[in-house]
C-alpha cells in the first residue's frame, strides 16, 4: 500500500530479571500510518514467531490509554514523541519511512525489568497500600449529597485522580522519583473533605513507602509533568509538600 513505511527498530531484549539485557535490531516492514505503535510491534512479533524467534514481551491491555499497563521508552521519551498520549495511543503517522526507533523499558531501580520491555511496578502498589484511601467501610456512608464539595475542588481532585499509574513520571525523572504519582493521590484526598480526617497519617505513611521502595527524591526538574500522558501537574507535588510540612509540625 502506498504511504506504508519501513522502519528499523532497536529493542531492549532481556530474558528475565536476573540476566543482563542488550539491544537487538529488527526491521518493521510495510507499516501503515494508521496502525498504533503497539500494533506495529504485534506485526514484528508475528514475524519473529514465524521465524522461530522469541517475540518481544511488552505490557499492554486496554489499548485506549486508560489502564496504565503500557510502559515503554520510545526514542528517549516515556510513551514516545507525542505529548499527552500513552504508547498504545501513539500512532505510526507520527513516524516517517526509514526512521530508526529505539525502544526500551522504564529504567528505575524500583522498577526491575522482568522481561524485555516488561517491568515490575509493585512498588507503586505498596505506596497505595500505605495510605491511598479513605477508611470507610462498605455500608457506613451518609447520603452522597450530605457532603457538598465546591465544584472547583471536585474538578481539581478529579484532575489529580486521573493519574493512570503507568510510571512514566519515574522513568522520565533523573532521580527515579515517584513524587508525581504519590502527590497526585495525596492531592485527590487533600482536596476533598472526605480525605481530611486521615490527611496527616496518609502523607507520612505514603511518603515512607515511597522512600522504602527505592524511589529517589524530587529535585524539581519537572520532567515528570512534561512526560505524563495524562497531564498530571507538578502543583500536586507542591500540595504534597505542604501536607507533609503540616503533618510534621503538628504530628499525629
Amino acid at each position, binding site marked *: 500500500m502506498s504511504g506504508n513505511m519501513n522502519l528499523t527498530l532497536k529493542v531492549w531484549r532481556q530474558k528475565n530479571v536476573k540476566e543482563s539485557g542488550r539491544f537487538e535490531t529488527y526491521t518493521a516492514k510495510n507499516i*501503515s500510518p*494508521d*496502525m498504533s505503535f503497539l*500494533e506495529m510491534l*504485534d*506485526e514484528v512479533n*508475528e514475524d519473529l*514467531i*514465524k521465524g*522461530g*524467534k*522469541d*517475540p518481544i*514481551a511488552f505490557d499492554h*491491555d*486496554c*489499548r*485506549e*490509554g*486508560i*489502564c*496504565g*499497563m503500557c510502559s515503554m521508552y520510545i526514542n528517549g521519551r516515556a510513551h514516545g514523541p*507525542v505529548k*499527552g498520549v500513552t504508547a498504545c*495511543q501513539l*500512532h505510526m503517522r507520527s513516524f516517517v519511512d526509514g526512521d530508526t526507533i529505539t525502544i526500551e523499558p522504564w529504567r528505575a531501580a524500583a522498577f526491575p525489568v*522482568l*522481561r524485555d520491555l*516488561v517491568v*515490575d511496578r*509493585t512498588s*507503586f*502498589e505498596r505506596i*497505595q*497500600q*500505605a495510605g*491511598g*484511601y*479513605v477508611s*470507610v467501610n*462498605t*455500608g457506613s*456512608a*451518609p*447520603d*452522597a*449529597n450530605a*457532603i457538598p*464539595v*465546591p*465544584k472547583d475542588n*471536585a*474538578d481539581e*481532585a*478529579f484532575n489529580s*485522580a486521573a493519574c493512570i*499509574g503507568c510510571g512514566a513520571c519515574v522513568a522520565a525523572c533523573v532521580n527515579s522519583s515517584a513524587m508525581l504519582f504519590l502527590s497526585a493521590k495525596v492531592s485527590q484526598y487533600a482536596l*476533598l473533605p*472526605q480525605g481530611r480526617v486521615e490527611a496527616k497519617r496518609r502523607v507520612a505513611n505514603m511518603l515512607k513507602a515511597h522512600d522504602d521502595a527505592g524511589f529517589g527524591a524530587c529535585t524539581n526538574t519537572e520532567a515528570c509533568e512534561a512526560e505524563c500522558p495524562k497531564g498530571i501537574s507538578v502543583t500536586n507535588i507542591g500540595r504534597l509538600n505542604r501536607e507533609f510540612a503540616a503533618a510534621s509540625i503538628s504530628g499525629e
Partner: protein
Amino acid sequence: MNLDSKIPAGPLAEKWDRHKFSCKLVNPSNKRKYDVIIVGTGLAGASAAASLAELGYNVKTFCFQDSPRRAHSIAAQGGINAAKNYRNDGDSVYRLFYDTVKGGDYRAREANVHRLAQVSVNIIDQCVAQGVPFAREYGGLLDNRSFGGAQVSRTFYAKGQTGQQLLLGAYSALNRMVGEGKVQSYTRHEMLELVMVDGQARGIIARDMVTGEIQRHSAHAVVLATGGYGNVFYLSTYARGSNSTAIWRSHKKGAYFGNPCFTQIHPTCIPVSGDHQSKLTLMSESLRNDGRIWVPKQKGDTRKPADIPEDDRDYYLERRYPSFGNLVPRDIASRAAKDMCDKGYGVGKTGLAVYLDFSDAIRRMGEKTVESKYGNLFDMYKQITGDNPYQTPMMIYPAVHYTMGGLWVDYNLMTTIPGLYATGEANFSDHGANRLGASALMQGLADGYFVLPYTIGDYLADIERKPIANDSPEFMEAEKVVKERLSKLLSIKGNKTVHQFHRELGLIMWNHCGMGRNEVGLKEGIEKIRGLRDEFWKNLLVPGSDLELNQNLEKAGRVADFLELGELMMVDALHRNESCGGHFREEYQTPENEALRDDENFAYVAAWEYKGDGQPHQLHKENLVFENVKLTQRSYK
C-alpha cells in the same frame, strides 16, 4: 438437576430485605476462619474483596494485570446509574427497575433487577465517601446526565472516565485491606482451573505469569469476577487480555452457562481502519446526549459532511424514534446504523460508518462547554483517527462491547456449583437481552459491595471452619491437568500463530453470530468453528517454554477456550427462535424491522450444561415469571 433460582417469596419491593434477614450469619470471630478466593479485580471483584475483608474474611485476589487497578472496568467511560432522583424528574427505584427490565427486552429476572435498583442509591453514597471525584454543580452537589433507554437523568459521572474513578475507589478500599493484612493480592497470576472437592468449589489452580510456576490455592468459596467474553470476536472494545478462561473452565466443571448468545454491540465506536487493527475504541454513549446521528439522504454522497445541507441529511434515529431520538437503547441504535449502512447510506472509506455530529451542540453551548463535558473523548478520537471532531463530525460504527450472558447464578449469585459465585459481567443475571448504558458499573458494584457480602455468609455458615488442604488428590489432579494442557499447547509446533487463529475465529463469530443472525448462517458458523478448532490443536505455533514470562502461551490457552465458547454461543443463538434485545434473528422481525420476541415459547433463561468433550450441551430452562411488569413490544417511538 433442577434450576432453583431461589427468588425469595413476597412482594417485589420486600424480597431483598426479607432475604437479607433470612440469610444465615457468620459471627465476627468465626469469619476469620474462612478463606475466600476472588478472581478478577475490576469493579465486581475489588468491591467484593474489600467488603468481605472488612467483614473479617481472609481474602485472596487474583488478576492477570500487574495491578488490580488495571482491570478493564477502568475503561468504562460514561457513567453509573442510580435511582437517587436528585433531579426531581420522576425517577424512583421502581422506574430504574422498570427501565432495566424493558431495556433488557424482558429477558431478565424481575427480583434481581429490583434489588439492583434498590442498592444503586447506596453505591453512590459509598463511592462519594471513598473520595470518588464525581462531577458536581456549582452548589457543590452531584451532577447527572442522561443515558439511552431512560427519560430521566440518573447517570452520575466523572467526565468520560467514570469507570476509572469508580475502580480507583474500589481499589483504594482493597488497598486498605491489603495494608491491614486481610487481603493477599496476587498480580500477574492467571486462574487456569477450578478445583472441586466433594462437589463443592474449594480452590483454583493459578499460574504465576512471570515465573510460570503452577500454584494450588484453596478456599471455602471461590468468586469469579472475571468480566465478559466479548473477545471471542477478536475485535471488540474489551482489553486485549480480557478472556473467558476462568468461567469456561468452571463451566466445564459443572457451572451452567446462561444465555451465551446475548452480546451487546455498542453503537458508537470508532470504525475499523484496516487488517492490522487489534482493538476497537468506544466513544461513550454519553455523546448521544448532545451529538446527533445522521447519514446523507442520497446514497454514495461524497461531499464533505459540512457541505451537506440540513435538507440532505437523514437524522434517522430522530426520524424513527421521535420520543427517545438519539437516546434509544444500544441494540436499537446499533441495528439502525447497520441497516443504514447495509442499504448503502454509510459514509467514510469503507461505507461502514455513520456521522455523530456535535455542530449543533457547539453552537448551542459553545466549544468550551462541549470540551468540559467530553474533552477526553474528543482527544482520543482525534489521536486515533487524525480528524478533529470539533470541526468535522465523528464517524462511528457498532462494535462488540459487553456480554449479557455469563455463568448462570441464583439470587445469591451462586452458580450451579456450590461454593462458586459469579459476579459482575461474568454472570448472566441482570441485563436480560440488552444492557442499558451506565448499568454495568452499577451491577458490578452492587454485586460486590451490597449483595455478595450478605449472600456468601449464608453458604459459609454451614461449612466446616477448618482450613481446606491444598494437597488433596483433587488439587493434585487439577494441577496435573493444567500442566499437561500447557505442555500440549507448546508441543504442537505447527505453522500458525495464536493471533492468526484468534483473528479467524473473530471473523467467523462476527459474520455468523454478530448483529444479524439466521439459521443457515449459524449452522455454517458452527461447522467453521469446529474446523478451526481442529486445526488449532494440530497447527498451532507457540514459541518459548512454560517456565518463563510467555505472552503467547497465555493467549493460546485463552483462545483455546474461546474456540469452544464460540460454538456454544452459536448453538444458543440457533435454538432461540425469536429476536430479543441484542439477539437479532433475521427470521423474526416486525414489519418495521424491530426485534420480534416470542414470549410464549422463549420467556426463559437458557442455561447450558456441559456434558463432555464432543457431546452436545444439555439445555435447562429457567422460566421467567413477570408479576410486576407487563410484557409488551418495546417501543421507543
